[in-house]
């Protein structure tokens, strides 16, 4: 049986290992194809390479011999066509290849808007998503003193941090009234905003990019915002989100059905026979809703399940209570359950340490059952918080036991009893 996997991100590689766990090289040949890098690397660590904290090679989660030991063939090429009827794909350089089972784990690409001036600008506009983006960023940083970053999300903050590390003056354009309403409530958003500003960043809330102004060489020279202000910059970072990489599929011989992402059912099968999709690129049909999940943890989980599904196992994706983590410069962030989009009528308990950037938010629904947590500035064991959500614990119960879920370093446990509290109904 030939298992072919397109994309060597976490979803693709997890699927490959899962298949190999079951079948030896005699029963299954496994090929992973990617046009981005020779080896799987951790996209989440791109910023650390940019900031000289890690060497490129350190980004690779597995040692290079692991693929050989596991007999996983790695191919550096681009897939340009899929013919599911014929069970073959076409590679840009290496031509046609047959498969028995195909996994599309092609990830997501940065979202982009064609602002006026973008087409005339040949150089200086960057993203921070792929290894090639990192190359671009590094090449441009040498000759950049001022930069503008557009998009107040998680990758935007990372890009801002990297540019500050290199001594670049950064203007951060955030469309929303406070930082990241998609994940945070106002109090936390404003705290993060101030924290970013305290690192010497000019944070502009409620301002948008209006026009890109290229210089005579074609490289970006300035931008204007929707307030009409002109801000000089030699680099313009766009971090307004990612979208599943589906566009290239339209022109293939047998395009799989796509919406926001490649449509899959809960066993990660597409509408094409013998073709699966997993990770950032897929849109999963849960019956009552469809979901596109573009974080590391979900991609990893998708990959494993898709691998099992390709082996013929009966797989039904049943996502656990949502959790995610991030870091806003120095402030660590853990979120569990439903927070920013909590339904009306929910009650929130907001806790803040006087004079420190440490907050906690606990959300309960109308029945006083806990549904979400947003924790900033200290460490938490999300598995305990998840458990409390599953057990539908009431607010007082949770608040009294909060210290059970602390995960701070030894001697560094945050004194929870010193925090101010405030209860509000949404």
């Amino acid at each position, binding site marked *: 049986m030939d298992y072919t996997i397109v994309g060597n991100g976490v979803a693709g590689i997890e699927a490959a290992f899962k298949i190999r766990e079951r079948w030896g090289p005699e029963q299954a040949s496994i090929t992973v194809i990617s046009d981005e890098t020779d080896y799987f690397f951790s996209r*989440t*660590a791109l910023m650390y390479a940019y900031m000289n904290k890690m060497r490129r090679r350190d980004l690779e989660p597995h040692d290079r011999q692991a693929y050989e030991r596991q007999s996983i063939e790695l191919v550096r090429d681009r897939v340009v066509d899929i013919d599911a009827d014929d069970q073959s794909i076409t590679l840009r350089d290496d031509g046609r290849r047959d498969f028995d089972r195909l996994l599309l784990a092609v990830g997501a690409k940065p979202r982009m808007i064609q602002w006026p001036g973008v087409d005339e600008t040949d150089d200086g506009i960057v993203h921070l998503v792929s290894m090639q983006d990192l190359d671009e960023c590094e090449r441009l940083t*040498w000759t950049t003193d001022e930069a503008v970053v557009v998009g107040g999300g998680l990758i935007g903050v990372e890009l801002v941090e990297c540019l500050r590390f290199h*001594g670049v003056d950064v203007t951060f354009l955030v469309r929303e009234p406070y930082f990241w309403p998609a994940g945070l409530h106002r109090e936390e958003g404003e705290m993060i905003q101030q924290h970013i500003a305290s690192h010497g960043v000019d944070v502009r809330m409620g301002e948008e990019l209006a026009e890109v102004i290229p210089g005579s060489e074609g490289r970006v020279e300035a931008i204007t915002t929707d307030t009409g202000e002109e801000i000089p910059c030699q680099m313009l970072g766009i971090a307004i989100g990612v979208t599943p990489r589906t566009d290239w599929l339209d022109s293939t011989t047998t395009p799989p059905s796509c919406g926001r992402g490649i449509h899959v059912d809960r066993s990660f099968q597409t509408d094409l026979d013998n073709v699966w999709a997993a990770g950032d690129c897929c849109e999963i049909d849960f019956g009552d809703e469809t979901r596109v999940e573009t974080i*590391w*943890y979900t991609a990893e989980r998708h990959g494993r399940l898709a691998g099992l599904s390709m082996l013929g196992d009966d797989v039904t994706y049943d996502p656990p209570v949502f959790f995610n983590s991030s870091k806003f410069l*120095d402030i660590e962030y853990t979120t569990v359950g439903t927070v920013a989009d909590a339904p009306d009528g929910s009650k929130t308990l907001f806790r803040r340490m006087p004079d420190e950037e440490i907050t906690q938010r606990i959300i309960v629904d109308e029945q006083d059952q806990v549904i979400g947590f947003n924790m900033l500035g200290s460490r938490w064991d999300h598995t305990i918080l998840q458990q409390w959500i599953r057990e539908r614990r009431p607010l007082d119960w949770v608040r009294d036991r909060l210290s059970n879920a602390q995960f701070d370093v030894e001697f560094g446990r945050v004194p929870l009893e010193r925090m101010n509290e405030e209860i509000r109904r949404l």
Partner: protein
Amino acid sequence: MRQKGTLGWLKHDVTHRGITAWLLTGALLAFYLVLYFTDWLTPIAKSLGLIHKWNLYGALYTLAIVTGGIYVIAKYRDNRYQVIRTSVVIFVQSTLAFSVPYVLELFNQPAVYLSYLWPLEISILYPKNLASAPVYFAVWAVVGSILIAPILGIFYGKRWYCSWVCGCGGLANTAGEPFRHLTPTSQGWWNFEKYAVHITLVLALLTTGLVGASYLIGPEQSPVLASYANSLQSWYGLLVVTILSGIVGVVLYPIGGTRVWCRNFCPMAAILGLVQKFGRFRIRVKDDMCISCGMCTTYCEMGIDVREYAQNNQDFTRAACVGCGLCEEVCPRGVLHLENEWDRDPQESLTMGALLEESYK
């Protein structure tokens, strides 16, 4: 990518095995050769009012730990484990390892180094030295080395010594901070370490045993044994104590990372590592939270592939781990937690067979 400008170049070059790193290594090597094999430093020490060149070396060593320690405390000021641990390292170095023996010497008392235990400092258990040492120190040397060190190791892991008390670890974790990511993580190094550190341990045991036996039997009774013991003692002194712990351990910082000595050769680390495997210390991994970024592996000065455990949701106790806590500090997702707990994750099976099979892992 390195920072721009000359300073950016220098910072990168010296911490990434560039030309300046090699120059620094060369300078350190020259310094150590002069220190160990000439008397050129004696007049300098005397002119500073010190008794001999070793006081001068002690003062420089302490200075390096204090300045490096202040830098580390400032860098990790939000991490209380690091702040407290580093403060203790500075305190132990400037008192037990430097000023206490110096003051004793000033008052014509025998200089004793309370923070250096056997088998890191194997000579303290040589019977001749035990007999001539002050009684309190002889008692401490025996009880501390044979009883207290392993017992504390059972309860708190080898970190209580390697990362809180020991001067070798102390220098690595303070002045060595900029070089910690250079420790190689490859399988080849792991194979080397596994043999090297246990061979030194066996040598240390053998040397102590032979020297002790020869003393007890008496050199007149058995001159052959005595001559073996003597030559082993001086070989061990030269090869292990002077060359490996004294010179190589520090000289290679800019090239091979800190803890070259601790990881590959230190017999104390070897013993405490085995003790640690049966004790309470472990690094707990928060399930499913690892983003495989690799910061932990990069900054582990013992070359442990921490990420491998973290991305497999596996709590672990590696014999090599000195409990410096830097993996826990640099992890951007707070996945790792150093702790002392008796209950273990069921995944961590520890049988004698596994221990022998994997040896040190």
